[in-house]
């Protein structure tokens, strides 16, 4: 009788684990439609046209890929720092205001997720185009004929806006955990606002800073649509180069080799960040 299942249970190791039956369909689908394609792409970068590192030698020696990889790392780093500078005061304000204002600030921070990726990118094409709102704005400050579409600054602006939530949320969840009484104590002991910030708030918010920086950096490394539409092939990023290899040349082994370079860069950054903060804080912290 099924109702006595829990009373008369067999020793655990004699029963087939029902968990595996529940996991099997998802794992099977994952193996066929994600893991196999990914592993096969990487495998081909080492085996085609012949077994060895020829693909990697070609990439590193072609005078383009290394430059593009360096540019990608530089743009991702720049985007992370700019995002941090914009998001830090914003997240700090979120922790010091009342619940109603905070709800509005959270909703605004999540806006980039709300608008679809294509809609957002389209909006930045319009905003940054020749004679568009941003160039009009810059003209008011005496900067004439600034076209940002097709340039790296344009790409950075678009990426910063899209990635702001990835910075605001970890920062906010860390700062929220700071005991406000510490701030009050520091002030009552005679520390000015700047000193209080430097000696109390800033050190305690460091885990959020590291988490936000590494999250934004890693996501930025893989950006494709934004650099394609806001940038140009002349200053391509690594994701664009992968796309070009496949679209124009159907050169999957070369694309695989570039993907490996990109994944190695991602792994290095994640490993460095994990040493500084527990990975769990990074993803589980933002609620």
């Amino acid at each position: 009788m099924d109702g006595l299942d829990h009373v008369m249970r067999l020793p655990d190791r004699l029963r087939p684990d029902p968990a595996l039956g529940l996991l099997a369909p998802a794992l099977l689908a994952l193996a066929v439609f994600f893991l196999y394609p990914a592993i096969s792409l990487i495998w081909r970068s080492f085996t085609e046209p012949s077994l060895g590192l020829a693909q990697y030698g070609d990439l590193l020696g072609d005078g383009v890929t290394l430059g593009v990889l360096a540019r990608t790392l530089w743009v991702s780093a720049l985007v992370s720092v700019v995002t941090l500078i914009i998001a830090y005061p914003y997240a700090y304000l979120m922790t010091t205001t009342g619940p109603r204002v905070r709800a509005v600030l959270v909703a605004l921070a999540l806006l980039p997720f709300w608008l679809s990726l294509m809609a957002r990118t389209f909006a930045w094409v319009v905003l940054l185009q020749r004679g568009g709102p941003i160039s009009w704005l810059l003209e008011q400050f005496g900067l004439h004929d600034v076209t940002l579409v097709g340039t790296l600054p344009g790409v950075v602006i678009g990426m910063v806006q899209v990635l702001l939530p990835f910075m605001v949320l970890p920062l906010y969840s860390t700062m929220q955990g700071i005991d406000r009484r510490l701030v009050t104590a520091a002030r009552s002991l005679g520390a000015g606002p700047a000193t209080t910030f430097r000696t109390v708030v800033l050190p305690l918010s460091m885990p959020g800073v590291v988490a936000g920086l590494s999250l934004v950096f890693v996501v930025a490394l893989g950006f494709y649509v934004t650099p394609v539409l806001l940038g140009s092939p002349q200053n391509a990023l690594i994701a664009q180069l992968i796309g070009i290899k496949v679209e124009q040349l159907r050169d999957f082994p070369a694309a695989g080799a570039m993907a490996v370079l990109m994944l190695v860069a991602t792994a290095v950054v994640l490993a460095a960040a994990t040493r500084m903060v527990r990975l769990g804080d990074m993803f589980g912290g933002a609620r």
Partner: protein
Amino acid sequence: MERDINRPATWLWVWAAATALLLLAPTLVVVPLSFAGEASFVMPPKSWSLRWYEEFFTNPRWRDALSASLRVALLTTVTATALGTAAAYGLARLRGRAAALLSGLLLSPLIMPQIVTAVAVLAVYLRWQLNGTMAGFVAAHTMLAMPYVVVTVRAALSDYDRSLDLAASSLGAGPWTRFRTVTLPLLARGIVSGAVFAFVISLDDVVIALYLQTPLLRTLPVQMYDSITVDVDPTIAAAATLILAVTTAVLLLPSLIRSKKLKKVSVP
């Protein structure tokens, strides 16, 4: 003390307002542009009309793209929610290293840059002749969407009281009855959130769709992409505004369900 030291400084408010403007900027462009009268991306528009909405619903290219997107997204929602919910349920029964390894595997599509996934999937689909097929699209989107279902259902399961299962079975309920009458109602919120995520992720995907598309099967984001790169077509603004409206409605769904009286089933 002349003022509350915990009160934020004025410059913080100015900074936050500027940041809010940056966050809002794309929305402030897309919505007005969708009502523009002229066939260009000039901002602000010089005249107003509904022609781009008319174009969106009457031009076969946009209509076909919309219907392809909706079919792919609905099928993806079904497969991702079914697979993801079962997997999350299975994961909750595992402990230790096996659980960590398998959950890492299930979430791995989130970490992979989408361009790499797109290229990798295209390479095998060319061999399997799946590119441009509905099944191929749905399978690829399911991989993107399933991690979100696993995460939301696992979160719901972490609040789930296992002794309710014991109580139900001691009262004579079989596994299926137990799942249907106890587990499912308690997990409904997590499952619905996961399903909503799956739908939105599929509807929003452009990178994978760009690589798997064929003239016979193009989704809405691909059509939007072409309307920027190939032809300057403001219909994209109308499409974007409509998607914004639909996404808002769909994302608010779980909180509407929450406010209904699901709480009455939960035990203190």
